[in-house]
């Protein structure tokens, strides 16, 4: 199998359906499983909550909660009971989906191919390397931004924001364009940043995997295989930072955007 085919194969979703009504089953199933994992673990934890002396795992979860709550307090003016659970969901879910990137790139597809018996079955395991996932979250956040903008500022205030911001009342056409771009860029930047980082990270993993796979022939494998291990480990450790950072950025930007929507100063 050639290099191009190898990479293309790894970057193709396992789909059902045609045209727009295509469903990327791998993306959907993996993200649902991870969501179910969150709910399952939370529910199990919820049954044995300790007020006085929390055990190890509860401590861990509490520290995540505390971290998220601190970020919400710092970046969000006022109080909205939706923001903190939203931020928490984004942080955990995105982190878990990103984490799929750290599982050896060929392991899950190989297992899947063994199970199905189809040596050409597609499986793209990282849901955040699918633009559908990141854009879905970004659009949900965008919907919330619009909702709270209108709820807090009123329809009139929302229209005024388009008309008189950022350059005052003498540049109304410019203001409309500017504000429109500003608002649209929020979901786009959210979705594309996460997608781009994860996609690129996955690609680098694939390239590193290729070193030992297709380049190494015969005695050259003695050189290429250790190099692959070293590079893979290095990129893995670096990527562990990236996936956490990306989950954190998505969360913080969501909080900040919603905070801006709550800001009546504009």
């Amino acid at each position, binding site marked *: 199998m050639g290099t191009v085919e190898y990479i293309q194969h790894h970057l193709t979703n396992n789909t059902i359906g045609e045209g727009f009504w295509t469903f990327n089953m791998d993306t959907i199933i993996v993200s649902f499983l991870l969501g179910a994992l969150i709910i399952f673990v*939370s529910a199990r934890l919820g049954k044995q909550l300790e007020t006085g002396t929390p055990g190890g795992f509860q401590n861990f979860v509490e520290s995540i909660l505390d971290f998220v709550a601190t970020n919400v307090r710092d970046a969000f003016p006022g109080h909205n009971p939706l923001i903190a659970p939203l931020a928490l969901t984004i942080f955990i879910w995105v982190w878990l989906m990103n984490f799929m990137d750290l599982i050896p790139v060929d392991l899950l597809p190989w297992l899947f191919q063994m199970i199905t018996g189809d040596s050409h079955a597609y499986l793209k395991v990282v849901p955040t390397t699918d633009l559908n996932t990141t854009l879905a979250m970004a659009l949900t956040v965008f919907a919330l931004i619009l909702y709270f903008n209108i709820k807090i500022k009123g329809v009139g205030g929302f229209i005024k924001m388009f008309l008189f911001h950022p350059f005052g009342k003498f540049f109304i056409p410019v203001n409309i364009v500017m504000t429109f771009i500003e608002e649209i860029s929020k979901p786009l930047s959210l979705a594309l940043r996460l997608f781009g980082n994860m996609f690129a990270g996955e690609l680098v993993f694939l390239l590193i995997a290729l070193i030992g796979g297709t380049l190494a022939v015969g005695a050259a494998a003695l050189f290429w295989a250790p190099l692959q291990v070293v590079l893979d480990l290095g990129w893995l450790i670096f990527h562990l930072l990236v996936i956490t950072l990306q989950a954190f950025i998505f969360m913080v930007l969501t909080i900040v955007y919603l905070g801006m929507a709550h800001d009546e100063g504009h």
Partner: protein
Amino acid sequence: MSINATLLIQIIAFVLLIWFVNKVLWGPLSKLMEDRQKKIADGLSAAEKGKHELELAEQKAKEVLKDAKAQAQNVLSQAEKRGSEIVEDAKVKATEEAERIKAAAQAEIEQEVSRAREQLRKEVASIAVSGAEKILGKEVNAAAHNDMLEALVKQI
């Protein structure tokens, strides 16, 4: 690779997950953490209050002790005073008693002396008469010499 219906599924999944996370994770756990925070704050303030109360109690105890000490001192000094008074009293009484006894003894002595003198006087008169009778060999008329006898008795 392109946008398709997966987007809709993922939006639904995301919204559902937010709802679930709020229900099973954020809700109970944040409530628990808040409760704990409140409990700790309450405990701390109670401890502070207790400390303050302890201080007050210590101060009060000190005051009470001081009072008691002062009272004890007072009682002691009063007792001393009273003691010395009693002793003084007793001294005075004893002196008076001694004086009285001395005076009584003196009076008795004087009485005794005067009685003895009286008796002596009488005896001297009779001795003188009988002596004179013996010398004269006859009865002396006491009445006749009464004046002389009385003068004699008075000389004793």
